């Protein structure tokens, strides 16, 4: 996926002279995850800029650059290190279009490597999507495959709205062969990754692969599991979501961010509202615990696992099972 993102940035820099890349270590080093590898050498240090170490400064100056006619793509080095930029993102990036009655567009892309599963230590593994998705004026998207990563990066750069592009770190090194093209579905469209009849797993980013694995394993249990990859967390593609759950009648939302106040609650509510008469069971969630991200030795217990997903699927009242579920953290093993 890192390669696909790199190719998207290179192609955008090549095709649009207004595009600039800014961030900490994005130039000579190519970024700590090498997503900007080789770009400074190819496009020069005026277009691929090693900034001083200051996240608010990076986003704040990107806002001014966009006002001045550029299309900045900024990198926050890690999820939790984007927090110093929060005021610029929420008070200005998200609001300037509205504040100026549409006169000032800010086509800025804020790239945030996010999530765990890489053995990282604290502050390097946060899932911060809910903060951004809660902010009107931002588009929040997260690819799960290299093909989506390329397309969504290109579309985010072309988008007249500010886009927070959350890059699931644990997918950076995934190597599926993919044809890279900017064409395809719109930036805010979800996709059915795997069709199934019995239950819908709704997920995004780093946990899409886990959900697909769970769906494969579920065949043995006799469940035909559908997997929906939301891809866009704001806005949410209700049409795809609703069509899927109306077909299957059961839904589990899976994400690794803490459950309370998380995206899963938003998704579950949308499903309940739109699919109530099709539902055979309450919508359940499998999420990370409501704890600061745990140390590497314990992260596998925190992250949604295939087993935890299957256990939760098992509790979807297949036999009118009456007992309440210990949502939102997924079911305990029976």
């Amino acid at each position, binding site marked *: 996926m890192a390669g696909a993102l790199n190719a998207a940035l290179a192609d955008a820099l090549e095709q649009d002279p207004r595009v600039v890349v800014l961030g900490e270590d994005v130039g000579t080093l190519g970024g700590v995850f090498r997503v900007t590898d080789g770009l400074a050498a190819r496009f020069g*240090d005026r277009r691929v800029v090693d900034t001083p170490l200051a996240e608010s400064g990076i986003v704040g100056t990107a806002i001014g*650059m966009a006002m001045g*006619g550029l299309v900045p793509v900024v990198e926050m080095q890690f999820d939790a290190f984007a927090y110093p930029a929060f005021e610029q993102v929420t*008070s200005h990036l998200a609001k300037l279009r509205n504040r*100026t009655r549409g006169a000032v567009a800010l086509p800025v892309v804020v790239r945030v490597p996010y999530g765990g599963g890489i053995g990282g230590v604290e502050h390097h593994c946060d899932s911060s999507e809910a903060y951004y998705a809660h902010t009107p004026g931002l588009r929040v998207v997260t690819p799960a495959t290299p093909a989506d990563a390329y397309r969504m990066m290109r579309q985010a750069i072309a988008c007249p709205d500010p886009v927070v592009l959350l890059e699931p770190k644990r997918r950076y090194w995934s190597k599926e062969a993919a044809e890279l093209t900017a064409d395809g579905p719109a930036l805010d469209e979800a996709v059915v990754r795997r069709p199934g009849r019995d239950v819908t797993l709704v997920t995004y980013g780093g946990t899409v692969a886990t959900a697909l694995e769970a769906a494969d394993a579920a065949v043995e249990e006799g469940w035909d599991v559908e997997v929906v990859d939301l891809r866009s967390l704001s806005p949410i593609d209700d049409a795809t979501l609703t069509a899927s759950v109306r077909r299957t009648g059961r839904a589990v939302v899976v994400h690794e961010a803490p459950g309370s106040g998380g995206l899963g609650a938003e998704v579950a509510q949308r499903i309940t509202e739109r699919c109530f008469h099709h539902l055979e069971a309450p919508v359940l969630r499998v999420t990370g615990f409501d704890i600061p991200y745990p140390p590497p030795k314990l992260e596998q217990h925190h992250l949604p696992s295939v087993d935890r997903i299957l256990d939760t699927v098992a509790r979807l009242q297949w036999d009118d099972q009456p007992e309440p579920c210990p949502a939102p953290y997924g079911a305990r093993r029976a």
Partner: protein
Amino acid sequence: MTPSSPALDGSVQERAAAFLPPGDGPQALVDPTGSPLPSPLAMPADDDLLALHRAMVVGRRFDTQASALTRQGRLAVYPSSRGQEACQVAAALALRPQDWLFPTYRDSVAIVTRGVPPVEVLTLLRGDWHCGYDPYEHRVAPQCTPLATNTLHAVGLAHAARLQGEDRVALVLLGDGATSEGDTHEALNFAAVWGAPVVFLVQNNGYAISVPLAKQTAAPSLAHKGVGYGMRSRLVDGNDAAAVHAVLTEAVAGAAGGDGPTLVEALTYRVEAHTNADDAGRYRDPAEVEAWLAKDPVSRSEAHLRSRGLLDDALAERFAREGEELAAGVRAALEHDVAPDPRELFEHVYAQPTAALLEQRDLLLAELEEEPA
């Protein structure tokens, strides 16, 4: 993209000296009684001095009108810049048409001086939801409320101009309190490292709401902070319009000429309370206000211009009349409340409203239709 420092060679002390504000104390051209002072600064041309004075007279009338309308409930809130007119008008008049101004909530007079229609400047304060003017029309950013955040926008816009090979300078206004915010630090640093064509004008009016400068900083002056960033710094008498204009014009020309950014601290005073909602009596001595009234920027400029024969009663009368006309226009325009269109609340959140926003808009419209008229 190398830092453009005046003295890259030489010792640390020599380099630091190149960035220090020149002289000992604020630079001035005209003393409080209106007499010219010896100064290495170049006295602005007669036309410029008259333009500054005219803008101050008109600007002050605008300011008193806005304060009055606030007392009458026509404006929700108004942060007055009375006493700071020299900074306000010099900031606007030092800029060329292609340059950008990045103002705060306190800088309405600067924006009016830049040419934005006064009624548009007051739009937000009247209770509308947008900034009132198109920033691209006059190259004035929306008035910024979150302190110091506009400093970074100015640096970004200025740097973008350089990257695009355009001759465009950004001037950002901020208060003494805002210099304590992290964004000011980041902006000064980015500007210096990038050599961005940006001018920072700190209007040091002594207070951040109630907090005096002594509780804000231990620096010898706010201008001295520029040294730490490797940025030229100036300390100027902020009630001397001629001096503020001279310093800013030089800073703008330097920025445009590739010399990079300048930090300017102007010493001035906020005569009114922080806003109409504030009670300045709780934190400052009336004697202090009195002392500053004696240094009033408008009467100082008037005395100076009269002593030089540049201003007579007739011209003074004309400037006053222009102020009255502007005030009358503002009063007339604000006679009626704004009627924000609720539909528009959903229109500019994104380039195209999302499906959810359209649903929410329709819900609100249906509710409004049901409401008894």
